């Protein structure tokens, strides 16, 4: 009996202990809707990126609030709001009052979903993802860091321009939100004084769906579902009537068309070269410097990742060679010998702290990549600063333009210098991070992170020390991981800071300060 009771108690305690430890694992940024720190009434005068000015896109003048058609919209809205169901309430809470965050998270999730490198075929060849046959296999795209930086840049720039146009028309027509006009309508979020025509949320929903669909062509059903849910939430929040939304969609359609036209001609479609071009790039580097990076996978990948990403159109730098870094050390130099010793020392004396740093910043295959990691921080900062959607889109636009320019500049250096990785030059070297399929110098993590941190330091000055420290940690993390030289990291950090200056100079003059 004694034994039986003891066993029973142990079992019950064990099960209870395990069940009571259930944790809520967050799948998106949880925040309570907030009162915007400012409305940015002059936002319609800010300088957009792709269009000349906010007024460049036309929408119809709204019906007067006293019109029958508008009153009918208000009446119908009240009926819908009275019939709201549980899933609609959940959607309202999810979308919150800054959908820039949510659409960015959707982009990050799709990046992580598609950030899978194609494996070899049975015969040892590799098949590349093909946008004209997105189902593959392998499916299109392979959302590697350059691809991710570009997807995020187009998404954010298009959102920013769309919202500048929305703000222009909002304050041109000054039609107050339904909940401001009718006391019986309760807004789902913290009230604000921003006019509701056209709906900024609808601009975001349409722009984001269209840009992301172009970047992730297999995600049509998912993106349509998210757009529909977002648009419905805009109505059910009490913040918009259908005519607000229709006009927002008009702006969204126009801006996304303009953004995607640029994307179609920015050179990305040539970035993943055939082997012959890749070989000639490699031979040119060998001719110049006497070295060349080689892929060491089994079977060997015939072409590195996007050798011509360095030729893609930059956002804010006229010529990529203007920001090309100095050459890396030659093999018989003291600098190189010292670095070999450093790499070996890290490998032989791996600490938990170095391992943690290597893993925290790894952002490797199957994740949202380093550009995604910096977007994630930015989402948190925007909410912390109670930014409205327009200012959030601006933040993301400058961040992601700088990050994409950083990637382009980094890839220019990678394939111009074509410098080998540590595993190629140190005999028997082993790593705790995966060695990527492109040359070593400079480190993508370093350039992406330094550029991102500079933009964030500009927009969130109180975070400057924090984010610059993060960028340096991200850079050195690759050395701890065993896949980069220290000069890849340090020169890459300088390079990223330099690249970001060009974007920050544009931001300083856009009228938002």
């Amino acid at each position, binding site marked *: 009996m004694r*034994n*039986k009771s003891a*066993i029973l108690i*142990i*079992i019950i305690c*064990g*099960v209870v*202990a*395990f*069940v009571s*430890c259930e*944790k809520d*694992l*967050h*799948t*998106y*940024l949880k925040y309570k809707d907030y009162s915007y720190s400012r409305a940015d009434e002059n936002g319609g005068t800010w300088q957009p990126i792709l269009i000349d000015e906010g007024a460049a896109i036309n929408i119809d003048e709204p019906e007067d609030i006293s019109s029958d058609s508008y009153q009918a919209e208000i009446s119908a809205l009240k009926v819908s709001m009275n019939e709201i169901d549980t899933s609609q309430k959940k959607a309202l809470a999810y979308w919150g009052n800054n959908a820039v965050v949510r659409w960015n*998270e959707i982009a*990050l*999730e799709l990046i*992580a*979903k598609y950030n*899978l*490198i*194609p*494996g*070899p075929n049975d015969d040892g060849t590799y098949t590349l993802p093909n946008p004209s046959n997105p189902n593959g*296999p*392998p499916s299109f795209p392979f959302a590697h860091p350059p691809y991710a930086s570009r997807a995020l840049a187009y998404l954010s720039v298009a959102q920013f321009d769309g919202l500048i146009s929305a703000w222009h028309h909002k304050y041109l027509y000054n039609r107050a939100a339904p909940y401001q006009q009718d006391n019986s309508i309760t807004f789902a979020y913290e009230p604000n004084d921003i006019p509701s025509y056209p709906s900024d949320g609808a601009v975001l929903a349409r722009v984001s769906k269209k840009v992301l669909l172009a970047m992730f062509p297999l995600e049509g059903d998912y993106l349509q579902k998210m757009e529909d849910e977002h648009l419905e939430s805009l109505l059910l929040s009490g913040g918009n009537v259908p005519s607000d939304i229709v006009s927002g969609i008009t702006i969204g359609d126009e801006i996304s068309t303009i953004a995607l036209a640029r994307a179609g001609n920015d050179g990305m479609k040539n970035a993943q070269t055939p082997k012959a071009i890749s070989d000639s790039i490699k031979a040119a580097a060998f001719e110049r410097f006497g070295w060349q990076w080689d892929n*060491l*996978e*089994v*079977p060997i990948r015939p072409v590195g990742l996007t050798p011509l990403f360095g030729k893609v159109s930059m956002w804010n730098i006229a010529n990529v060679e203007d920001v090309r870094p100095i050459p890396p050390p030659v093999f018989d130099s003291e600098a190189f010998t010292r670095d070999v010793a450093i790499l070996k020392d890290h*490998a032989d004396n*791996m600490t*938990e702290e170095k*391992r*943690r740093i290597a*893993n*925290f910043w*790894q*952002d490797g*295959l*199957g*994740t*949202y990549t380093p550009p*995604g*990691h910096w977007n*994630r921080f930015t989402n948190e900062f925007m909410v912390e600063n109670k930014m409205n959607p327009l200012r959030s889109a601006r933040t993301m636009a400058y961040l992601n333009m700088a990050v994409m320019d950083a990637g382009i500049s980094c890839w220019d250096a990678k394939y111009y210098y074509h410098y080998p990785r540590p*595993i190629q030059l140190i005999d028997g*070297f*082993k*790593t*705790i991070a*995966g*060695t990527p399929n492109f040359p070593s110098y400079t480190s993508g993590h370093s350039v992406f992170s330094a550029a991102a941190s500079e933009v964030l330091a500009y927009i969130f000055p109180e975070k400057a020390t924090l984010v610059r420290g993060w960028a340096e940690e991200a850079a050195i993390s690759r050395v701890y991981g*065993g896949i980069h030289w220290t000069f890849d990291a340090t020169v890459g950090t300088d390079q990223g800071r330099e690249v970001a200056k060009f974007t920050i100079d544009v931001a300083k003059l856009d009228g938002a300060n």
Partner: protein
Amino acid sequence: MTALLLSLFRYKRKAQIDLNILIVFLFTAVLSIGQTPTDALMMPPKNICILLSYDYGHFDRYWEGDNLRSNETIASVNRTTILPMAAVGIFDDLNFYIGLPYVKTKSSEPNGGKFEGANDFQDFMVALKYKALEKSVGSGRLSLLTTVGYSTPATNYLSDYMPYSLGFGAPEFSLRGIAQYQLSNGFYVRGMASHLWRGYTEAERDYYYNNGSFYTSLMDVPNAWNFEGVLGKWFMNNALKLELNYTGLKSTSGDNIRAYNAAQPSNKVKFDRLGISLQYYPPSLNGLGVVGYYTNVVNGLNTAKISNVGLGLTYQFNFIKNTNNEQNAQ
């Protein structure tokens, strides 16, 4: 049998290629010894049985979802486990188990990934086995037993480093039911069913994809069912025991390994494993025993097609009188 034992304790992870494998190995090793949390043997009071086993596991293919594949990035992965374990007789019907395996992993050369392997102590495990019933039924004896076990990582090994991670990196609480029927001629059959409650493991990154984004460093290691079926016989006046065993593991949730991507602790793992074990207590060496086994995963989901071979030494003695009580043990 062997498999069960270990499985009891800790490991098992589903995710990676090798975690499972590891686990399996460990368990296997332990089991084969006798007096494990998953078998039907009981130690007499005041007796202690020490086991030291060496297990070598190896795989060059794994199931990515249900697709069995090879991967030259990791080539062939080796997993070596050294397991010290002790079984203590508290009462006639209550035994206590304690163990701590040391695991070392690495890829064969050459490989395309050039990844460093890992090595450290894995999970500290304890278990209590209780014999609820033993009675004559027909011409044999029926035994019913239950085991509760708990294991938790003993070191800060990184579970999110498949296929080289040492274990799934989370605490596990297990509850087992064991039934054995043994004929007087030494034949016996045994069945075991258990549920394994696994907690969270902590990665060193705070974002991962598991059929969607997760903004946390915690990964939910799926709970699992674990089954074992054993056919065995005692020979040579109970000095030699031969067992054929089947072990099954089935996660109750989790995601699949994605194409050409690393496994992770949140993966849904299933496997069917077959094994054979031989245990010998040389009558001339009082209290000493030797155990050897071989197991092979024949079917799986998100796990390695691993085969393990192990060899162990056991020594049983009465820790009060310091005399051997070997024969009583079984």
